[in-house]
Protein backbone atom coordinates (compact mmCIF):
# COMPACT_ATOMS: atom_id res chain seq x y z
CA UNK A 1 0.00 0.00 0.00
CA UNK A 2 1.33 3.40 -0.90
CA UNK A 3 0.94 6.20 1.56
CA UNK A 4 0.18 9.39 -0.34
CA UNK A 5 -0.55 11.42 2.77
CA UNK A 6 1.99 14.13 3.41
CA UNK A 7 0.84 14.94 6.92
CA UNK A 8 4.00 14.71 8.97
CA UNK A 9 3.74 13.49 12.52
CA UNK A 10 6.25 14.62 15.14
CA UNK A 11 6.82 13.65 18.76
CA UNK A 12 8.24 16.60 20.65
CA UNK A 13 5.63 17.17 23.36
CA UNK A 14 5.11 13.62 24.54
CA UNK A 15 8.57 12.34 23.68
CA UNK A 16 10.38 11.15 26.79
CA UNK A 17 13.97 11.01 25.55
CA UNK A 18 14.77 14.20 27.47
CA UNK A 19 14.42 14.46 31.22
CA UNK A 20 12.31 17.47 32.18
CA UNK A 21 14.50 18.72 35.02
CA UNK A 22 17.63 18.32 32.89
CA UNK A 23 15.97 20.50 30.26
CA UNK A 24 15.26 23.17 32.84
CA UNK A 25 18.75 23.02 34.41
CA UNK A 26 20.32 23.24 30.98
CA UNK A 27 18.27 26.28 30.05
CA UNK A 28 19.21 28.03 33.27
CA UNK A 29 22.89 27.76 32.38
CA UNK A 30 22.32 30.05 29.45
CA UNK A 31 22.42 33.80 29.00
CA UNK A 32 18.91 35.19 29.55
CA UNK A 33 18.80 37.61 26.63
CA UNK A 34 20.31 35.00 24.35
CA UNK A 35 17.66 32.50 25.34
CA UNK A 36 14.83 34.96 24.70
CA UNK A 37 16.38 35.74 21.32
CA UNK A 38 16.43 32.01 20.59
CA UNK A 39 12.70 31.85 21.32
CA UNK A 40 12.08 34.83 19.04
CA UNK A 41 14.20 33.27 16.28
CA UNK A 42 12.32 29.99 16.59
CA UNK A 43 9.18 31.75 15.39
CA UNK A 44 7.13 30.07 18.14
CA UNK A 45 3.68 31.61 18.31
CA UNK A 46 1.12 31.03 21.04
CA UNK A 47 -0.72 27.72 20.70
CA UNK A 48 -3.94 28.95 22.36
CA UNK A 49 -5.37 30.42 19.18
CA UNK A 50 -4.39 34.07 18.93
CA UNK A 51 -0.81 33.23 17.93
CA UNK A 52 1.17 36.04 19.51
CA UNK A 53 4.97 35.52 19.21
CA UNK A 54 5.97 33.90 22.49
CA UNK A 55 9.54 35.20 22.62
CA UNK A 56 8.37 38.78 22.21
CA UNK A 57 5.80 38.42 24.96
CA UNK A 58 8.49 37.12 27.32
CA UNK A 59 10.83 39.93 26.29
CA UNK A 60 8.21 42.57 27.15
CA UNK A 61 7.62 40.96 30.52
CA UNK A 62 11.35 40.74 31.22
CA UNK A 63 11.77 44.41 30.34
CA UNK A 64 8.78 45.51 32.43
CA UNK A 65 9.84 47.38 35.57
CA UNK A 66 9.38 46.08 39.10
CA UNK A 67 10.02 42.72 40.64
CA UNK A 68 6.44 41.66 41.21
CA UNK A 69 5.42 39.77 38.07
CA UNK A 70 3.24 36.76 37.40
CA UNK A 71 3.32 33.72 35.15
CA UNK A 72 0.02 32.11 34.20
CA UNK A 73 -0.78 28.88 32.43
CA UNK A 74 -4.10 29.11 30.62
CA UNK A 75 -5.72 25.70 31.08
CA UNK A 76 -9.28 26.83 30.44
CA UNK A 77 -9.53 24.89 27.16
CA UNK A 78 -13.17 25.66 26.39
CA UNK A 79 -13.17 25.89 22.60
CA UNK A 80 -15.56 23.26 21.25
CA UNK A 81 -13.66 20.33 19.78
CA UNK A 82 -10.40 20.87 21.60
CA UNK A 83 -8.97 18.51 24.20
CA UNK A 84 -5.22 18.55 23.56
CA UNK A 85 -4.44 20.55 26.72
CA UNK A 86 -6.25 17.87 28.69
CA UNK A 87 -3.92 15.24 27.25
CA UNK A 88 -0.81 17.36 27.86
CA UNK A 89 -1.85 17.87 31.48
CA UNK A 90 -2.52 14.16 31.88
CA UNK A 91 0.77 13.03 30.34
CA UNK A 92 3.28 15.87 30.50
CA UNK A 93 2.25 18.36 33.19
CA UNK A 94 5.86 18.36 34.43
CA UNK A 95 7.01 19.97 31.18
CA UNK A 96 4.30 22.62 31.43
CA UNK A 97 5.39 23.54 34.95
CA UNK A 98 9.08 23.50 34.03
CA UNK A 99 8.33 25.87 31.14
CA UNK A 100 6.62 28.23 33.56
CA UNK A 101 9.61 28.01 35.90
CA UNK A 102 11.91 28.87 33.02
CA UNK A 103 9.83 31.95 32.23
CA UNK A 104 9.92 32.92 35.91
CA UNK A 105 13.70 32.70 35.90
CA UNK A 106 13.92 34.74 32.68
CA UNK A 107 11.50 37.49 33.64
CA UNK A 108 12.18 37.67 37.37
CA UNK A 109 8.68 36.55 38.32
CA UNK A 110 8.53 34.49 41.49
CA UNK A 111 4.91 33.36 41.40
CA UNK A 112 2.98 31.37 38.84
CA UNK A 113 -0.54 29.99 38.59
CA UNK A 114 -2.29 27.39 36.53
CA UNK A 115 -5.92 28.30 35.83
CA UNK A 116 -7.68 24.97 35.36
CA UNK A 117 -11.21 24.77 34.02
CA UNK A 118 -13.69 23.23 36.45
CA UNK A 119 -14.66 20.67 33.82
CA UNK A 120 -11.21 19.14 34.50
CA UNK A 121 -11.70 18.92 38.27
CA UNK A 122 -11.32 15.13 38.01
CA UNK A 123 -7.58 15.66 37.38
CA UNK A 124 -7.08 18.15 40.20
CA UNK A 125 -5.23 15.75 42.50
CA UNK A 126 -2.92 14.70 39.69
CA UNK A 127 -2.19 18.36 38.90
CA UNK A 128 -1.58 19.20 42.56
CA UNK A 129 0.83 16.29 42.94
CA UNK A 130 2.80 17.22 39.82
CA UNK A 131 2.80 20.85 40.86
CA UNK A 132 4.10 20.09 44.34
CA UNK A 133 6.87 17.90 42.91
CA UNK A 134 7.93 20.69 40.58
CA UNK A 135 7.80 23.33 43.32
CA UNK A 136 10.07 21.07 45.38
CA UNK A 137 12.43 20.73 42.41
CA UNK A 138 12.50 24.53 42.03
CA UNK A 139 13.48 24.81 45.70
CA UNK A 140 16.25 22.28 45.31
CA UNK A 141 17.71 24.08 42.32
CA UNK A 142 17.44 27.36 44.21
CA UNK A 143 15.01 28.85 41.75
CA UNK A 144 12.86 31.40 43.56
CA UNK A 145 9.59 30.42 41.91
CA UNK A 146 6.48 28.52 42.89
CA UNK A 147 3.23 27.60 41.20
CA UNK A 148 -0.29 27.62 42.62
CA UNK A 149 -3.60 26.30 41.33
CA UNK A 150 -6.70 28.37 40.58
CA UNK A 151 -9.90 26.68 39.46
CA UNK A 152 -12.34 28.07 36.93
CA UNK A 153 -16.09 27.78 37.42
CA UNK A 154 -17.56 26.98 34.05
CA UNK A 155 -17.29 30.01 31.75
CA UNK A 156 -15.81 29.79 28.25
CA UNK A 157 -14.99 33.49 28.14
CA UNK A 158 -12.61 33.03 31.08
CA UNK A 159 -10.19 31.52 28.57
CA UNK A 160 -9.72 35.04 27.24
CA UNK A 161 -6.62 36.14 29.07
CA UNK A 162 -7.95 39.32 30.71
CA UNK A 163 -11.22 37.63 31.73
CA UNK A 164 -9.08 34.83 33.16
CA UNK A 165 -7.18 37.38 35.22
CA UNK A 166 -10.43 38.96 36.46
CA UNK A 167 -11.60 35.50 37.47
CA UNK A 168 -8.31 34.80 39.25
CA UNK A 169 -8.98 38.01 41.19
CA UNK A 170 -12.34 36.53 42.29
CA UNK A 171 -14.41 38.79 40.08
CA UNK A 172 -16.90 38.20 37.28
CA UNK A 173 -14.94 36.87 34.33
CA UNK A 174 -15.49 39.85 32.07
CA UNK A 175 -12.76 40.75 29.58
CA UNK A 176 -10.90 44.01 30.15
CA UNK A 177 -10.10 46.63 27.57
CA UNK A 178 -6.74 46.10 25.86
CA UNK A 179 -4.32 47.88 26.03
CA UNK A 180 -2.90 47.64 28.56
CA UNK A 181 -1.89 44.09 27.72
CA UNK A 182 -1.23 41.63 30.55
CA UNK A 183 2.52 41.70 29.88
CA UNK A 184 2.40 45.31 31.14
CA UNK A 185 -0.55 45.23 33.58
CA UNK A 186 -2.13 41.85 34.23
CA UNK A 187 -2.85 39.98 37.46
CA UNK A 188 -3.16 42.54 40.26
CA UNK A 189 -2.10 45.07 37.61
CA UNK A 190 1.42 43.64 37.59
CA UNK A 191 3.29 42.46 34.47
CA UNK A 192 1.93 39.02 33.66
CA UNK A 193 2.79 36.40 31.06
CA UNK A 194 -0.22 34.30 30.04
CA UNK A 195 0.44 31.33 27.78
CA UNK A 196 -1.45 28.30 26.65
CA UNK A 197 -0.62 24.88 28.15
CA UNK A 198 1.05 23.73 24.92
CA UNK A 199 3.11 26.90 24.45
CA UNK A 200 4.91 26.31 27.77
CA UNK A 201 6.11 22.91 26.63
CA UNK A 202 7.42 24.09 23.27
CA UNK A 203 9.24 27.03 24.86
CA UNK A 204 11.02 24.64 27.21
CA UNK A 205 11.91 22.28 24.37
CA UNK A 206 13.23 25.07 22.14
CA UNK A 207 15.66 26.09 24.88
CA UNK A 208 17.28 22.69 24.31
CA UNK A 209 16.81 21.75 20.67
CA UNK A 210 17.38 25.32 19.47
CA UNK A 211 15.53 27.66 17.17
CA UNK A 212 16.89 26.09 13.98
CA UNK A 213 15.79 22.55 14.72
CA UNK A 214 12.33 23.78 15.72
CA UNK A 215 11.97 26.08 12.71
CA UNK A 216 13.04 23.29 10.38
CA UNK A 217 9.54 21.94 10.99
CA UNK A 218 6.58 23.74 9.47
CA UNK A 219 6.62 26.74 7.19
CA UNK A 220 8.15 30.18 7.32
CA UNK A 221 5.15 31.82 8.98
CA UNK A 222 4.07 28.77 10.95
CA UNK A 223 7.20 27.21 12.34
CA UNK A 224 7.33 23.98 14.29
CA UNK A 225 4.61 21.52 15.05
CA UNK A 226 1.52 21.61 17.20
CA UNK A 227 -1.07 19.38 18.74
CA UNK A 228 -4.34 18.86 16.93
CA UNK A 229 -7.56 17.64 18.53
CA UNK A 230 -9.23 15.54 15.85
CA UNK A 231 -12.92 14.71 16.30
CA UNK A 232 -16.22 14.13 14.55
CA UNK A 233 -16.59 11.84 11.56
CA UNK A 234 -13.16 10.25 11.69
CA UNK A 235 -12.10 6.65 12.24
CA UNK A 236 -9.37 7.83 14.61
CA UNK A 237 -10.33 10.67 16.92
CA UNK A 238 -7.55 11.79 19.24
CA UNK A 239 -4.62 14.11 19.78
CA UNK A 240 -1.89 14.21 17.14
CA UNK A 241 1.26 16.26 16.94
CA UNK A 242 1.60 17.42 13.35
CA UNK A 243 3.82 19.75 11.45
CA UNK A 244 2.31 23.18 10.93
CA UNK A 245 1.46 24.44 7.47
CA UNK A 246 -0.09 21.25 6.09
CA UNK A 247 -2.72 21.35 3.39
CA UNK A 248 -6.21 20.62 4.63
CA UNK A 249 -6.59 18.04 1.84
CA UNK A 250 -3.65 16.10 3.31
CA UNK A 251 -5.20 16.31 6.73
CA UNK A 252 -8.48 14.96 5.41
CA UNK A 253 -6.69 12.17 3.54
CA UNK A 254 -5.17 11.09 6.84
CA UNK A 255 -8.12 11.57 9.18
CA UNK A 256 -11.28 11.64 7.08
CA UNK A 257 -13.75 8.77 6.74
CA UNK A 258 -13.76 8.95 2.93
CA UNK A 259 -16.91 11.06 2.88
CA UNK A 260 -15.75 14.31 4.50
CA UNK A 261 -18.00 17.19 3.51
CA UNK A 262 -16.54 19.96 5.65
CA UNK A 263 -13.95 20.62 8.32
CA UNK A 264 -14.45 23.19 11.03
CA UNK A 265 -10.95 24.53 11.67
CA UNK A 266 -10.39 26.23 15.05
CA UNK A 267 -13.59 25.32 16.85
CA UNK A 268 -16.80 27.31 17.03
CA UNK A 269 -14.81 30.54 16.74
CA UNK A 270 -12.93 29.23 13.68
CA UNK A 271 -13.79 28.72 10.03
CA UNK A 272 -15.71 26.07 8.14
CA UNK A 273 -14.05 24.77 4.98
CA UNK A 274 -16.12 22.84 2.41
CA UNK A 275 -14.75 19.89 0.46
CA UNK A 276 -14.09 21.81 -2.77
CA UNK A 277 -11.65 24.10 -0.94
CA UNK A 278 -9.68 21.43 0.94
CA UNK A 279 -6.69 21.65 -1.38
CA UNK A 280 -6.55 25.46 -1.26
CA UNK A 281 -6.36 25.80 2.50
CA UNK A 282 -3.17 25.78 4.56
CA UNK A 283 -3.49 25.07 8.27
CA UNK A 284 -1.35 27.77 9.84
CA UNK A 285 -0.94 31.48 10.19
CA UNK A 286 -0.66 32.00 6.41
CA UNK A 287 -4.00 30.22 5.95
CA UNK A 288 -6.42 29.26 8.67
CA UNK A 289 -4.85 29.06 12.11
CA UNK A 290 -6.27 26.84 14.82
CA UNK A 291 -5.81 26.44 18.52
CA UNK A 292 -6.00 22.75 17.69
CA UNK A 293 -9.67 21.99 17.16
CA UNK A 294 -10.37 20.08 13.92
CA UNK A 295 -13.93 18.80 13.63
CA UNK A 296 -14.80 16.65 10.62
CA UNK A 297 -18.31 16.40 9.20
CA UNK A 298 -19.40 13.89 6.58
CA UNK A 299 -22.20 14.17 4.06
CA UNK A 300 -24.81 12.85 6.50
CA UNK A 301 -24.48 15.93 8.70
CA UNK A 302 -26.66 18.98 8.50
CA UNK A 303 -24.55 22.12 8.53
CA UNK A 304 -27.61 23.98 9.76
CA UNK A 305 -27.47 21.90 12.94
CA UNK A 306 -23.76 22.55 13.26
CA UNK A 307 -24.24 26.32 13.01
CA UNK A 308 -27.28 26.23 15.29
CA UNK A 309 -25.23 24.40 17.92
CA UNK A 310 -22.38 26.93 17.67
CA UNK A 311 -24.76 29.90 17.98
CA UNK A 312 -26.43 28.42 21.05
CA UNK A 313 -22.96 28.04 22.49
CA UNK A 314 -22.04 31.67 21.82
CA UNK A 315 -25.36 32.96 23.13
CA UNK A 316 -24.85 31.12 26.40
CA UNK A 317 -21.20 32.04 26.77
CA UNK A 318 -21.29 35.73 25.78
CA UNK A 319 -20.53 37.64 28.97
CA UNK A 320 -23.04 40.28 27.95
CA UNK A 321 -20.78 43.27 28.52
CA UNK A 322 -21.09 44.66 25.00
CA UNK A 323 -24.40 45.06 23.23
CA UNK A 324 -23.29 43.94 19.73
CA UNK A 325 -22.13 40.60 21.11
CA UNK A 326 -24.94 40.04 23.62
CA UNK A 327 -27.74 40.99 21.26
CA UNK A 328 -25.94 39.79 18.15
CA UNK A 329 -25.45 36.17 19.25
CA UNK A 330 -29.14 35.95 20.11
CA UNK A 331 -30.32 37.60 16.89
CA UNK A 332 -28.13 35.38 14.71
CA UNK A 333 -29.63 32.31 16.33
CA UNK A 334 -33.20 33.57 16.05
CA UNK A 335 -32.40 34.72 12.52
CA UNK A 336 -31.36 31.33 11.15
CA UNK A 337 -34.35 29.72 12.86
CA UNK A 338 -36.63 32.27 11.19
CA UNK A 339 -35.14 31.62 7.76
CA UNK A 340 -35.40 27.87 8.25
CA UNK A 341 -39.07 28.12 9.26
CA UNK A 342 -39.71 30.51 6.35
CA UNK A 343 -40.87 33.34 8.59
CA UNK A 344 -38.04 35.37 7.07
CA UNK A 345 -36.90 35.34 3.43
CA UNK A 346 -33.57 33.75 2.47
CA UNK A 347 -32.06 37.19 1.85
CA UNK A 348 -32.25 37.82 5.57
CA UNK A 349 -29.14 35.62 5.82
CA UNK A 350 -27.21 38.37 4.00
CA UNK A 351 -28.42 40.97 6.50
CA UNK A 352 -27.20 38.70 9.28
CA UNK A 353 -23.81 38.27 7.63
CA UNK A 354 -23.44 42.04 7.40
CA UNK A 355 -24.33 42.27 11.05
CA UNK A 356 -21.44 39.99 12.02
CA UNK A 357 -19.15 42.67 10.60
CA UNK A 358 -20.54 45.13 13.14
CA UNK A 359 -19.95 42.51 15.83
CA UNK A 360 -16.37 42.08 14.66
CA UNK A 361 -15.69 45.81 14.82
CA UNK A 362 -17.64 46.73 17.94
CA UNK A 363 -17.09 43.78 20.29
CA UNK A 364 -14.61 44.06 23.09
CA UNK A 365 -13.09 40.60 22.98
CA UNK A 366 -12.36 37.74 20.64
CA UNK A 367 -15.63 35.98 21.44
CA UNK A 368 -17.90 38.56 19.85
CA UNK A 369 -15.31 39.40 17.21
CA UNK A 370 -15.07 35.88 15.89
CA UNK A 371 -18.70 34.72 15.85
CA UNK A 372 -18.78 35.85 12.23
CA UNK A 373 -16.03 33.40 11.28
CA UNK A 374 -18.16 30.30 11.62
CA UNK A 375 -21.36 32.12 10.75
CA UNK A 376 -20.24 33.55 7.43
CA UNK A 377 -18.24 30.56 6.30
CA UNK A 378 -21.05 28.09 7.03
CA UNK A 379 -23.84 30.28 5.62
CA UNK A 380 -21.85 31.16 2.48
CA UNK A 381 -20.70 27.63 1.74
CA UNK A 382 -23.91 25.84 2.69
CA UNK A 383 -26.50 28.47 1.81
CA UNK A 384 -29.12 25.99 0.66
CA UNK A 385 -28.85 23.88 3.80
CA UNK A 386 -29.74 26.99 5.78
CA UNK A 387 -32.98 27.48 3.85
CA UNK A 388 -34.33 24.02 3.05
Amino acid at each position, binding site marked *: MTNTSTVRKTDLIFGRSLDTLTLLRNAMQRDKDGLIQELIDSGLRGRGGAGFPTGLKWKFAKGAPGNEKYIICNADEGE*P*GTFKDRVILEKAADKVFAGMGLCGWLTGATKGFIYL*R*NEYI*WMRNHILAQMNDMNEAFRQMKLDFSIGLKM*GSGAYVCGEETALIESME*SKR*GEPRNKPPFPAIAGYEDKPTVVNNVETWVYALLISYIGADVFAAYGTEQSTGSKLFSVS*GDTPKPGVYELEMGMKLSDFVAEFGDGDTKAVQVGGASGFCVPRRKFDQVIIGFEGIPTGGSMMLFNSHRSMYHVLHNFLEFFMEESCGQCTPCRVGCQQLLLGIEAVKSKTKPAQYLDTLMEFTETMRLASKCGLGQSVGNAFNSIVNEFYEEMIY
Partner: protein
Amino acid sequence: MEKTVLEEIIYRQGAQRDRLLPILQDVVEQQNFLTEGDMLHIANLLQMSAAEVYGTASFYSFLPLNRKGKYMIRLCKSIIAKMKGSDQVLAAITDQLGIKPGETTADGVFSLELVNDIGWSDREPAMLINDKVFTDLDPVKVTHILTNYLKQASTQAFVTNLSTN
Protein backbone atom coordinates in the same frame (compact mmCIF):
# COMPACT_ATOMS: atom_id res chain seq x y z
CA MET B 1 -24.99 25.31 54.77
CA GLU B 2 -24.46 25.36 58.52
CA LYS B 3 -22.77 28.55 59.62
CA THR B 4 -19.97 26.74 61.41
CA VAL B 5 -19.11 24.73 58.30
CA LEU B 6 -19.14 27.87 56.18
CA GLU B 7 -16.98 29.73 58.67
CA GLU B 8 -14.53 26.85 58.66
CA ILE B 9 -14.22 27.21 54.86
CA ILE B 10 -13.74 30.97 55.09
CA TYR B 11 -11.21 30.59 57.86
CA ARG B 12 -9.23 28.10 55.77
CA GLN B 13 -9.31 30.25 52.62
CA GLY B 14 -8.84 33.60 54.36
CA ALA B 15 -11.54 36.22 54.90
CA GLN B 16 -10.47 38.47 52.06
CA ARG B 17 -12.25 39.86 49.03
CA ASP B 18 -9.83 38.14 46.65
CA ARG B 19 -10.63 34.72 48.17
CA LEU B 20 -14.31 34.98 47.26
CA LEU B 21 -14.22 32.59 44.31
CA PRO B 22 -12.33 29.78 46.09
CA ILE B 23 -14.76 30.14 49.01
CA LEU B 24 -17.79 29.89 46.74
CA GLN B 25 -16.19 26.92 44.98
CA ASP B 26 -15.61 25.14 48.29
CA VAL B 27 -19.23 25.63 49.33
CA VAL B 28 -20.45 24.30 46.00
CA GLU B 29 -18.10 21.35 46.23
CA GLN B 30 -19.74 20.36 49.52
CA GLN B 31 -23.41 21.02 48.78
CA ASN B 32 -23.59 21.58 44.98
CA PHE B 33 -25.27 25.00 45.19
CA LEU B 34 -25.29 28.32 47.03
CA THR B 35 -28.14 29.61 49.19
CA GLU B 36 -29.01 33.24 49.81
CA GLY B 37 -28.06 32.68 53.45
CA ASP B 38 -24.62 31.39 52.46
CA MET B 39 -24.01 34.41 50.27
CA LEU B 40 -25.18 36.87 52.93
CA HIS B 41 -22.94 35.31 55.52
CA ILE B 42 -19.95 35.32 53.16
CA ALA B 43 -20.62 38.97 52.31
CA ASN B 44 -20.65 39.82 56.01
CA LEU B 45 -17.42 38.07 56.83
CA LEU B 46 -15.61 39.36 53.73
CA GLN B 47 -16.98 42.85 54.36
CA MET B 48 -18.46 43.26 50.94
CA SER B 49 -21.99 43.83 49.72
CA ALA B 50 -24.30 40.88 49.23
CA ALA B 51 -25.00 42.21 45.73
CA GLU B 52 -21.35 41.87 44.85
CA VAL B 53 -21.20 38.28 46.09
CA TYR B 54 -24.37 37.46 44.18
CA GLY B 55 -23.11 39.29 41.08
CA THR B 56 -19.91 37.29 41.06
CA ALA B 57 -21.53 33.91 41.74
CA SER B 58 -24.24 34.40 39.13
CA PHE B 59 -21.62 34.84 36.42
CA TYR B 60 -20.40 31.25 36.67
CA SER B 61 -22.37 28.28 35.41
CA PHE B 62 -20.72 25.91 37.89
CA LEU B 63 -21.94 27.97 40.86
CA PRO B 64 -25.71 27.24 40.91
CA LEU B 65 -27.95 29.60 42.86
CA ASN B 66 -30.85 27.25 43.39
CA ARG B 67 -31.15 23.92 45.11
CA LYS B 68 -29.35 21.02 43.43
CA GLY B 69 -29.16 17.33 44.18
CA LYS B 70 -26.37 15.45 45.89
CA TYR B 71 -25.09 14.29 42.50
CA MET B 72 -24.83 16.86 39.76
CA ILE B 73 -24.97 15.25 36.33
CA ARG B 74 -23.56 17.44 33.56
CA LEU B 75 -24.06 15.88 30.16
CA CYS B 76 -22.18 17.44 27.25
CA LYS B 77 -24.32 18.86 24.44
CA SER B 78 -21.62 19.95 21.98
CA ILE B 79 -22.14 19.26 18.30
CA ILE B 80 -19.71 16.34 18.49
CA ALA B 81 -21.59 14.91 21.49
CA LYS B 82 -24.84 15.10 19.52
CA MET B 83 -23.24 13.40 16.52
CA LYS B 84 -22.08 10.57 18.78
CA GLY B 85 -25.49 9.99 20.36
CA SER B 86 -25.81 12.21 23.43
CA ASP B 87 -29.56 12.60 22.82
CA GLN B 88 -30.07 8.87 23.32
CA VAL B 89 -27.99 9.02 26.48
CA LEU B 90 -30.12 11.93 27.68
CA ALA B 91 -33.30 9.94 26.98
CA ALA B 92 -31.93 7.03 29.03
CA ILE B 93 -31.14 9.32 31.97
CA THR B 94 -34.59 10.92 31.80
CA ASP B 95 -36.22 7.46 31.65
CA GLN B 96 -34.32 6.18 34.63
CA LEU B 97 -34.47 9.21 36.90
CA GLY B 98 -37.62 10.92 35.70
CA ILE B 99 -35.97 14.31 35.33
CA LYS B 100 -35.30 16.58 32.39
CA PRO B 101 -32.38 19.00 32.02
CA GLY B 102 -32.57 21.70 34.68
CA GLU B 103 -34.51 19.47 37.11
CA THR B 104 -33.74 17.68 40.36
CA THR B 105 -35.20 14.37 41.53
CA ALA B 106 -37.84 14.66 44.27
CA ASP B 107 -35.58 12.83 46.74
CA GLY B 108 -32.83 15.40 46.09
CA VAL B 109 -30.32 12.82 44.94
CA PHE B 110 -29.73 13.83 41.30
CA SER B 111 -29.76 17.01 39.27
CA LEU B 112 -29.34 17.02 35.53
CA GLU B 113 -27.89 19.70 33.31
CA LEU B 114 -26.73 19.99 29.72
CA VAL B 115 -23.40 21.76 29.40
CA ASN B 116 -21.06 23.01 26.70
CA ASP B 117 -17.95 21.15 25.60
CA ILE B 118 -16.24 19.41 28.54
CA GLY B 119 -13.08 18.51 26.62
CA TRP B 120 -13.79 14.94 25.51
CA SER B 121 -14.68 15.28 21.82
CA ASP B 122 -12.52 12.23 21.19
CA ARG B 123 -14.74 10.13 23.47
CA GLU B 124 -18.25 11.54 23.37
CA PRO B 125 -20.89 11.16 24.67
CA ALA B 126 -19.37 12.26 27.95
CA MET B 127 -20.65 13.58 31.27
CA LEU B 128 -19.47 14.76 34.65
CA ILE B 129 -21.01 13.59 37.92
CA ASN B 130 -19.68 15.92 40.62
CA ASP B 131 -15.90 15.61 40.29
CA LYS B 132 -15.84 12.43 38.17
CA VAL B 133 -15.90 12.07 34.42
CA PHE B 134 -17.53 9.32 32.33
CA THR B 135 -16.88 8.92 28.61
CA ASP B 136 -17.90 6.72 25.64
CA LEU B 137 -21.44 6.62 27.00
CA ASP B 138 -24.39 4.83 25.52
CA PRO B 139 -27.87 4.23 27.00
CA VAL B 140 -26.85 0.91 28.59
CA LYS B 141 -23.63 2.21 30.07
CA VAL B 142 -25.20 5.34 31.55
CA THR B 143 -28.01 3.33 33.15
CA HIS B 144 -25.43 1.09 34.75
CA ILE B 145 -23.47 4.07 36.09
CA LEU B 146 -26.58 5.72 37.54
CA THR B 147 -27.69 2.44 39.14
CA ASN B 148 -24.40 2.35 40.99
CA TYR B 149 -24.91 5.90 42.22
CA LEU B 150 -28.45 5.04 43.32
CA LYS B 151 -27.14 2.09 45.34
CA GLN B 152 -24.50 4.30 46.89
CA ALA B 153 -27.10 6.91 47.80
CA SER B 154 -29.49 4.42 49.39
CA THR B 155 -26.66 2.80 51.38
CA GLN B 156 -25.67 6.20 52.68
CA ALA B 157 -29.26 7.06 53.57
CA PHE B 158 -29.52 3.75 55.44
CA VAL B 159 -26.33 4.37 57.41
CA THR B 160 -27.39 7.92 58.24
CA ASN B 161 -30.72 6.57 59.51
CA LEU B 162 -28.97 3.99 61.67
CA SER B 163 -26.72 6.53 63.27
CA THR B 164 -29.51 9.03 63.98
CA ASN B 165 -31.90 6.44 65.44
